[in-house]
């Protein structure tokens, strides 16, 4: 019941945002050309902006309603006491520096007048009647600085909404921490963000570092802030960005989706006084390798000459160990020849191998002691300067060396999944019933005065999680809402992008919720990391009216306390294959196996690199390493879990058949996938237009579940149109549709959505993942394939990005690197793999979940039980008790 209700709400919300998007579309389309998209941060030209707004006001009533921001100062004649017109008071072009603001300054809620950043100039100077070109003549004399260390661990970091924050842990070496450091932040924001009241706050390790007005709608702006000494520490540093944004004109909930800011990775980072700090030279400083301007950590294996299978064994194992030890947020492995040049930021050079391998790769290979594993940074001219050497006399000793590297990272807490280098703090990990407080998940107590509040936290689940159909979690919410909040405001819980639960705020005069139970069905939870967020949308009367200056009023409306808890109930635990979620999320069943993982691939550089990238990502997912065997004996393949990686044309047809993919010849790959316009190509990220609608929701929409042929959607649409007219059959169809969507029962009988014909990936696929079983055993085979080895290697870097990686589930999935689109195919024939002892309580939970999935079976079993019960009862009753009493 709750689910159907949730779906209803979900669809209305989607409809609402679609509508909003549609309204904005013409505006956006017309406004876009006005901006110089290639501009990487130099001040935008006011002259170019002006037509854009003219176009907008031509755009009709909808556009008109959004534009008064530009009229406020002109027509309404505000006194400018509280809000000073920035354009008038700001020393245009003066560099904005934050010098050691104390905590008092941090808590000062008063809007700071006259914020002006380099490049911040345009909109308010376009007062009617003034020559607009005047502002354009103030270029930023200094120009943007290039950071010595990039810090943003994702390709594109974007904060959306009225009150958002994001934290992650960046590691610094002792040397780095000792130097005076300046923080650079390059960002762009939506034009709707009102700079007078919108602030970005940066804290490091909980200490205030900077507060910046968000006022860079014209193009990327870089602001600088000196980090007070003593704030940075050697080791992990929690960097936290908090955005408070206010809409210029609009008070609607929809308008909050227009508020965003996006960071320019290349302009954001740390500048150390005295130039870049040398590359880390200690193994313990591996995490301080950091990221490059795309948020990636490149692990470069220096390996001249052909790759033998024992090389790939070592590379695949070393990649795992390095990823774990370095706690890299997104490691991408490449294999290069000698003389790769000095390592740019976020790059680690590695040489791994036997003494002769080291000799091939290095000018002065370090001596290797007998029976001693070698794990050391050395400086070698041939190997690109500072290089990490993993060596040993035999393959066994190398494994020991790598093992030593990996075990150094053995993280202490089994109840956490280490993800803090992307999203701090680490995710709680549930293997059964348990609870975690919001404070432990980084959700702080906050009072909120806006319209839409989103609190996000990740939840880790084991590979053998099997509770999606009947399991339940609860959120015990400590919160309160003000009397001004209208009943009917909603609190929704989303899991992995799907609405899981909705709770209506119904009290007329505000309400205090103490440990209010919000039930969250586990329907959308999967093995591995799950993204959960609570979204509170607050309806307030004053927002309905939205009089002048309404968005300026900052009256607290909602508060959530960090004493709230997320409580997981017990869930069934049994592994199931094929199930890509468990593979992706926890490396299941490969990492759980005691055998080395059999990886079958061609030993060429792109394939091995792609395989190593995948293994590194899997090791991070599993939080451990596994031995790899890249030349397994063919006979053993039928009975052990195998990972097939490579270009589709070199995958044996029977492997394709086993994993449910059509024959390679039938796949219509595009000859050359269109180059992705994003991070993977190494180009500067392209900015969204400040007018554009947010991408967060569309990112979720990028997953679609499809049938083997992909024809079902088209068929449904045609059926709708064809039968739409006729009376009875349409009614039956509608009923069937309603029944299915409401109760998840298909009248056709089968409860599972998968289908049996082989999967034919769409032409634009970059990476195909599919799982099946070995022909005559229950051993799991997984295929990771691309069109060619090179295209696979190129796409795998994006594919392993958690943003996409975590969306993979089902039996097969394809990833389109150009669009980020993920197509899922549901599994049909799934088999259980026992992972935990099948105790009575676990069996009960498994049965409950299975019966919830197979609801028709459940109904039949129930009816059968009733009949048996009735028969037995009547037989028993027929035996008269003796003597009649």
């Amino acid at each position, binding site marked *: *019941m*709750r689910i*159907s*209700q949730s779906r209803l709400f979900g669809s209305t919300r989607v409809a609402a945002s679609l509508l909003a998007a549609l309204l904005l579309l013409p505006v956006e389309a017309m406004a876009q050309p006005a901006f110089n998209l290639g501009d990487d941060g130099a001040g935008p030209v006011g002259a170019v902006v002006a037509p854009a707004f003219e176009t907008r006001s031509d755009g009709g009533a909808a556009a008109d309603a959004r534009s008064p921001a530009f009229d406020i100062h002109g027509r309404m004649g505000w006194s400018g006491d509280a809000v000073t017109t920035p354009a008038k008071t700001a020393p245009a072009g003066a560099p904005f520096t934050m010098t050691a603001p104390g905590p008092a300054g941090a808590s000062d809620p008063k809007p700071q007048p006259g914020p002006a950043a380099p490049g911040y100039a345009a909109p308010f100077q376009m007062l009617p009647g003034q020559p607009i070109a005047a502002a354009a003549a103030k270029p930023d004399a200094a120009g943007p600085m290039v950071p010595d260390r990039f810090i943003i661990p994702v390709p594109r970091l974007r904060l959306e909404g009225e009150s958002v924050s994001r934290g992650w842990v960046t590691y610094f070496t002792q040397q780095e921490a000792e130097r005076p450091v300046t923080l650079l932040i390059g960002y762009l924001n939506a034009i709707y963000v009102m700079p007078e009241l919108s602030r970005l706050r940066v804290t490091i390790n909980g200490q205030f570092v900077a507060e910046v007005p968000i006022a860079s709608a014209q193009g990327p702006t870089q602001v600088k802030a000196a980090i007070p000494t003593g704030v940075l520490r050697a080791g992990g540093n929690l960097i936290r960005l908090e955005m408070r944004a206010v809409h210029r004109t609009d008070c609607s909930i929809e308008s909050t989706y227009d508020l965003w800011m996006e960071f320019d990775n290349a302009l954001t980072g740390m500048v150390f006084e005295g130039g870049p700090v040398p590359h880390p030279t200690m193994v313990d400083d591996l995490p301080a390798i950091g990221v490059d301007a795309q948020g990636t950590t490149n692990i470069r294996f220096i390996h001249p000459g052909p790759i033998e299978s024992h090389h790939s064994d070592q590379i695949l194992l070393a990649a795992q160990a390095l990823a774990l030890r370095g706690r890299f947020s997104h490691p991408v492995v490449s294999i290069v020849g000698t003389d790769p040049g000095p390592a740019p930021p976020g790059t680690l050079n590695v040489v791994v191998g036997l003494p002769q391998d080291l000799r091939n790769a290095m000018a002065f290979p370090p001596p290797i002691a007998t029976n001693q594993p070698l794990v050391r940074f050395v400086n070698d001219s041939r190997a690109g300067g500072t290089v990490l050497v993993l060596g040993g006399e035999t393959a066994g000793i190398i494994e020991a060396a790598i093992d030593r590297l990996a075990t150094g990272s053995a993280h202490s807490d089994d109840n956490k999944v280490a993800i803090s280098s992307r999203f701090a703090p680490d995710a709680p990990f549930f293997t059964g019933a348990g609870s975690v407080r919001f404070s432990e998940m980084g959700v702080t107590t906050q009072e909120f005065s806006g319209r839409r509040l989103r609190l996000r936290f990740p939840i880790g689940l084991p590979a053998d999680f099997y509770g999606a159909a009947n399991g339940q979690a609860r959120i015990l919410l400590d919160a309160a809402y003000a009397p001004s909040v209208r*009943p*009917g405001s909603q609190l929704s819980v989303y899991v992995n992008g799907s609405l899981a639960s909705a709770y*209506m705020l*119904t*009290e*007329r005069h505000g309400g205090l919720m*103490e*440990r*209010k*139970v919000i039930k969250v069905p586990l329907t959308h939870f999967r093995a591995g990391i799950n993204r959960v967020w609570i979204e509170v949308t607050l309806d307030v009367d004053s927002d309905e009216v939205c009089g002048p200056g309404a968005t300026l009023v900052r009256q607290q409306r909602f508060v959530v306390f960090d004493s709230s808890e997320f409580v997981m109930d017990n869930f069934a635990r049994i592994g199931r294959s094929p199930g890509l979620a468990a593979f992706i999320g926890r490396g299941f069943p490969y990492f759980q196996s005691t055998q080395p993982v059999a990886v079958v691939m061609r030993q060429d550089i792109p394939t091995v690199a792609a395989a190593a990238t995948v293994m590194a990502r899997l090791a991070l997912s599993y939080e451990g390493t596994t031995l790899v065997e890249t030349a397994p004996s063919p006979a053993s393949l039928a009975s052990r879990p195998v990972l097939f990686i490579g270009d589709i044309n070199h995958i044996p047809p029977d492997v394709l058949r086993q994993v449910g993919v059509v024959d390679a010849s039938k796949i219509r790959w595009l000859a050359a996938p269109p180059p992705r316009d994003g991070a993977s190509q190494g180009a500067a990220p392209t900015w969204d237009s400040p007018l554009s609608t947010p991408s967060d929701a569309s990112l979720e929409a990028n997953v679609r579940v499809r049938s083997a042929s992909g024809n079902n959607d088209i068929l449904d649409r045609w059926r709708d149109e064809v039968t739409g007219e006729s009376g009875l059959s349409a009614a039956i169809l509608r009923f069937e549709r309603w029944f299915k969507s409401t109760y998840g029962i298909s009248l056709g009988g089968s409860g599972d959505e998968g289908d049996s014909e082989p999967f034919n990936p769409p032409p634009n696929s970059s990476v195909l993942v599919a799982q099946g079983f070995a022909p005559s055993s229950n051993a799991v085979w997984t295929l990771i394939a691309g069109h060619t080895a090179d295209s696979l290697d190129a796409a795998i870097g994006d594919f392993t990005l958690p943003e996409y990686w975590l969306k993979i589930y089902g039996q097969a999935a394809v990833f389109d690197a150009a669009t980020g689109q993920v197509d899922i195919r549901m599994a049909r024939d799934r088999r259980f793999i026992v992972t935990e002892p099948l105790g009575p309580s676990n069996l009960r939970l498994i049965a409950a979940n299975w019966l919830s999935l197979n609801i028709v079976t459940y109904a039949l079993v129930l009816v059968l039980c009733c009949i048996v019960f009735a028969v037995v*009862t*009547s037989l028993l*009753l*027929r035996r008269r*008790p003796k*003597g*009649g*009493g």
Partner: protein
Amino acid sequence: MEELANFIPALLLYGAEMYSVALMGLSLFVVSSPQPPRTAPVIASGREPTVDIFVPSYNEDAGLLATTLAAASAIDYPRDRFTVWLLDDGGTDQKCEQHDLPAAREAQMRRETLTELCRELGVNYLTRPRNEYAKAGNLNHGLAHSSGELIVVFDADHAPARSFLRETIGYFNEDPRLFLVQTPHFFINPDPVERSLDTWRRMPSENEMFYGVIQRGLDRWGGAFFCGSAAVLRREALRETDGFAHSSITEDCETALTLHARGWHSVYVDTPLIAGLQPETFASFIGQRSRWAQGMYQILRFHFPLFRSGLTMAQRICYMSSILFWFFPISRAIFLVSPFFYLFFSLEIFNGSGAEFVAYTAVYLLINLFIQSYLYGKYRWPWFSELYEYIQTVYLLPALLSVMINPKKPTFKVTSKGETIDENRISEIGLPFFVIFVIQIIAVFVTFWRIATEPYSADITIVVGMWNLLNLIISGCALGVVSERAAKRHSQRMAITRRCSLLIDGVEVPAVIENVSMGGVRIRTELPADAKARVGMHAVVRVTPPDACISDTLPILVRKVALSEGAVVLGAQFNAKCAAHYQLIADLIFANADEWKKFQAGRRNNPGVLRGTVMFVMIAGFQTLRGLAYVTQLEKLTRRFAPGLFARAPR
């Protein structure tokens, strides 16, 4: 957990729901396989056990007692093998010598009258020094002064059919450990609900569900219990327990429980063998039910059947089922007020959406209705259980709570029977029903108001509103129940056909008695031209008398004369002068129990859930209007200007 204000009512509601579910489970067990009809074992001639027939009385008038005693004396059994005892508690020494002189005189008069009556009827009159332990004490006094192997108990208004002993005694010869043969109580007058709702002739009486299904179900598990009257007991068994138990005010059930626990057996015979009277007014009906509810609670408290050693598991469940049933006032009250908590105070005692309600509660309700219809459909129409429970709840709840606080306090109060209602009126205890009704009407308006002003919680409001509406329908029907119609006679007429001769206006003509009630007869006859029947005329009916009767004539008083198809139909009132006349009346009414059975069978039709529901809603609608008409005095106006508008319920 959450707020206390929400939590407590929610917990109560949860408890009430669990109680309903549990009770339903117990009931299903009890009625899972009702005992099929038994055939009475034949008593070998000469081996008839000696029987003492006790008719305990407290304040019933002589006429009523005369009928019962006459019927008891006329029982078909060797005259020397049974003795009828009138156990009079209204003429005890204590009563005759009390300080209230008029009352003392009345008691002395009563003793004299009854002694004379008993002498005429050949019945033993027995009274005792003090009124100790009420009915149980009275019966035990009777036990002490008699010696029959078997004891039969008839309430003062329970006149037995002639076949009573033949149908019951045989079982005692078959099973030496048998202590009880219970027969159903068949009533020849409607209870207040039946009379107000005018359903007596077409709907099974309330107690038929108990005697038609539940006692048979209990009997199947060896747990049929003593219902105070119309039963045969074994003296040997009673001797083990020093007579009838008296720690509770329902001595009957308690006695049965004690003896069951000692390994004695019981039998239930599903044939109406006595005809009695039910309480006439709503107030006395409530009084009777309060006694049962309190007594049952006392048994639970003093004996707790679930852990009582000596009982079989099935018997424990049976007794628990019978006793726990009487907790219905608590759960009913909770179901009644719960919607108010939500509608008036917005307490969130329901945690669920409208859809969840439909999925769980509505399905439960429907299934419950279907199961009830399947199991009891012939004996109880849909929703009437709810009506009966509701009308009792208002008064039984305080009674139950008081006995829970002070279990020893309640004392035996005799249910008054044979009262008459002279004019249409609201029952003296009817006010609360109108108050509740008004609150519910307000709640209906609040429902609409909240749906309009709080559309976000409309689904729950609608659900709660529907719930309140259901309560309202029942509550409206109860308004009709407490608006009591005037009733001219105690008992309804039973159709019989009996030849007689009528002496009227100086001639004797053959006639046929068409029906008979406790008060009179209807006679069809053809009069010669010279004879005239007039209202107020005295006449005499001559019938074939029963064996022991010394008279064959019965004086009557003509009350109504009608002509139909050339025949004269007289409505006449009995004008009994002596005991022999009562014997004749008893013979007319009680000679043949088959008539009762036929009458009951005629009412036992299962209308089905849907039709039954529609009928109930129609009845409820009509009764609501009637109740409102009574309370607003409109009824008196309509009686003047549109007579008959509220006289009959819709069919």
